[in-house]
């Protein structure tokens, strides 16, 4: 490894290769507490050329690696266990913005809000807005197919990525998609987006920018039961009115936020709030606002407050966006899940989550993208308390299994990474997992990129033996 470090230092400079344990501590976890892995070394290329040379040097040496953006991921996906970590956070150039054609090309380390600020100068914005957008990078967003509150109306990262130049783990450089519109053949860009660093590293990403909505209205509806808020959510979706965002926070989460520096003026005696953004052209918007407000009241909202101005709107959203930060006050550790259910199943699953939490003696908080059915059940706990940690694990496992039973999935925007890999066989059958493995094999036949993530390797190996046997002419 020392020789490899020397080789990499020749490419990026001595200061950009970290090998000592103390200097690697910052890279032993990501945004999800509970996982800790230490890379053998970390290397930080500062230019596209350096990144290419680093990947090719690792390919020559046959060394596995893990790409990492800002490390804000919530699935343990950017952790390197005894392998090389490639930090992409120095590749921060916005290469071009074409306001007329509404596209931007950026290096992978560009922070989401940096792109937002650059686009705003042209009256445009980049739609995916993860809660970590002030720190997370576009490369990381593409790797995870990141979402955010406003993806309800505008779609996730996949829907806004039009092209990427990618270096494959073996050093080959390929162009996926095209800023010029349609490309013939397989949607390789679609396969790459959300591949969690297992298919290679984006040298640049070209994304779509949208014109800012002419008008936005933000509503805060508070309810005296979670069930009522969930039923209001289902009713709003069923009308066909498509809010830009439709978020829910339960009463416990509201009280935590209000006790923190992120206090947003939410009513602390309620059991749930819905935060709704409606945007678009001015004409007709007030009708939708009135319809949503009426539905909230019909389903039991005690009050529906409409933000009077941009400052109030920002304040209301601050409470939602910083809610997970506020949870840090409750206990030293936080487990945060990311399941999705069909939207009509929200009332049932929220009730079941409450029951599961109670069974394990845990308070499960719900702060989530209700309009998408994208749940984020969360528990603050003390990992040093072995009994509590064990109960948290069992509780979260039951919640995930319940979401799968309701016809849902195990991740809507955080990715599988390490955290959800054990749930994959519950969601997908062996043949589907095997097919996913075969796709990875095409991009990375040596399994050197972010190995051990997304699809369980052990089942993968077993399963891709079977089709190979069948391909020999013995189809069962």
């Amino acid at each position, binding site marked *: 490894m020392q020789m490899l470090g020397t080789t990499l230092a020749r490419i990026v400079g001595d200061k950009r290769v970290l090998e000592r344990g103390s200097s690697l501590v910052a890279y032993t976890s990501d945004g999800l507490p509970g996982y800790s892995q230490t890379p053998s070394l970390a290397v930080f290329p500062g230019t596209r050329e350096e990144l290419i040379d680093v990947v090719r040097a690792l390919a020559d040496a046959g060394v596995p690696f893990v790409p990492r953006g800002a490390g804000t991921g919530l699935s343990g996906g950017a952790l390197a266990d005894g392998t090389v970590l490639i930090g992409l956070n120095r590749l921060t150039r916005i290469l071009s913005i074409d306001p007329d054609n509404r596209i931007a090309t950026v290096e992978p380390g560009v922070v989401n809000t940096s792109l937002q600020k650059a686009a705003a100068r042209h009256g445009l914005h980049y739609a995916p807005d993860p809660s970590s957008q002030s720190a997370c990078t576009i490369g990381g967003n593409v790797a995870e197919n990141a979402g955010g509150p406003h993806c309800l109306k505008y779609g996730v990262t996949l829907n806004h990525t039009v092209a990427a130049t990618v270096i494959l783990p073996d050093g080959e450089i390929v162009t996926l998609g095209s800023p010029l*519109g349609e490309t013939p053949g397989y949607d390789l860009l679609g396969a790459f987006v959300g591949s969690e660093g297992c298919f290679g590293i984006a040298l640049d990403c070209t994304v779509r920018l949208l014109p800012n909505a002419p008008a936005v209205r933000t509503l805060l509806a508070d309810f005296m039961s979670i069930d009522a808020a969930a039923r209001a959510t289902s009713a709003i979706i069923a009308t066909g009115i498509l809010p830009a965002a439709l978020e829910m926070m339960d009463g416990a989460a509201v009280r935590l936020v209000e006790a923190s520096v992120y206090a947003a003026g939410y009513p602390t005696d309620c059991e749930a709030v819905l935060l709704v953004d409606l945007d678009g052209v001015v004409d007709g918007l007030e009708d939708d606002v009135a319809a949503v407000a009426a539905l909230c009241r019909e389903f039991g909202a005690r009050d529906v407050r409409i933000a009077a101005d941009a400052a109030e709107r920002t304040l209301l959203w601050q409470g939602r966006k910083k809610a997970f930060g506020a949870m840090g006050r409750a206990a030293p550790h936080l487990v945060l899940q990311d399941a999705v259910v069909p939207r009509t199943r929200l009332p049932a699953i929220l009730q079941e989550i409450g029951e599961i939490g109670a069974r394990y003696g845990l308070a499960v908080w719900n702060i989530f993208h209700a309009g998408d059915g*994208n749940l984020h059940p969360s528990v603050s706990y003390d990992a040093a308390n072995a009994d509590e940690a064990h109960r948290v694990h069992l509780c979260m496992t039951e919640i995930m299994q319940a979401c799968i039973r309701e016809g849902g999935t195990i991740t809507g925007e955080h990715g599988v990474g390490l955290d959800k890999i054990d749930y994959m066989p519950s969601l*997908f059958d062996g043949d589907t997992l095997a097919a996913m493995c075969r796709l990875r094999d095409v991009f990375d036949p040596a399994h050197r990129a972010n190995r051990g993530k997304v699809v369980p390797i052990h089942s993968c190996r077993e399963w891709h033996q079977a089709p190979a046997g069948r391909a020999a002419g013995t189809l069962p």
Partner: protein
Amino acid sequence: MNGDWAAVAAPTVYTRSVGEVQSAMRDAAADATALQIAGAQSWADGGPPRRAGRVLSLRHLSGISTYVPGDLTITAYAGTSLAELSHATAAHGQWLGLDPAGERHGTIGATISTASSGPLAHAFGTPRDLVLGLDAVTGYGETVRPGGRVVKNVAGFDLVRLFTGSWGTLGPITSITLRLRALPVHDVTLAIALDEPAQLPVLLHALRQSTLSLLACEWVDGTTSKSLGISDGRDAVLVRFGGNDSFVRGQRGVLSRLAFCEPSDPAVWGALSLLDAGAGAVIRVSGSVTGLPARITRLRQEIRSDVVRVAMHASLNRGVVRIIVAGNVNSVQPALQALHDGEQRIPERLPNDWWATEPDPFGVGLAGRIRAAFDPHALCNPRMATNA
């Protein structure tokens, strides 16, 4: 769709269940017979010629298996027609925002397999944006079920996007789950006739700078406009928007300040999707949105309507021009097969012998390796040999 004139004489295996599709695939592997994957064969000469010994028809693998209107999602078997989907969803005030060219008895399986879309892509995107999950049988005979029934899902590698637009080359798609939208309360179509073709860049700029929120915005050439009753022979821009009373009133107002608009029969969108009938060649040319007017001008100069019968329409939001040519198409072959800098060219339908010089986008590099990984014996829609 996906019809194969090369395999017209080949026997057809009609499947009515996923199990029968798997059996057909196993039989194909056992006797090394390539399969032509077919839906309703409403687009019988679309795509490159295939080398197939049997036609695997999914026409009868049809029906809606799950529809929960409150979730705005629907799951249907591949052989379900677009008309059946429209009928079922309209009953609940919903629709699938997908209007590909072709007859409405064409199947959803073929639509997704070919990633076909139409003018509504302006607002709702292409199939990659609408498909939530699917089932497919690979060349190994195994059934894969990526994605799901939820509107947000990043679990596992994205086989949904891989199969969408794969033209059956990885194996037949058997079932698809799609995202639906609410039908707008009012659905309005207006036409803007252009006195001079040169007005298009100005109008395009004005439309994009405006506060319009459109469902579709399509330029149509003058001859086609006249034949569809849109204009008196002038080029025209068809604009579609939908929403509540206030919204529609406001959008009309914005449009009327930009250009003189006349109401148009919404049926024009259906007519536009049927321009292909009798065509000898259909291609799409895409590029930057701002370069669209110049692209249209060049294509008109190269594909002259006094030489062949030509219809063109273009998405003003996506920069894609669709060119439909009938008559002596060989006389404009160089123009239809030329590839210009800054443009992408997608052939939909070409004379048989032209395909020999068309590159196979599924055959080389990463794509070729992916195809081999899912269909190692080239059982599914293998293409006739090409010279490219």
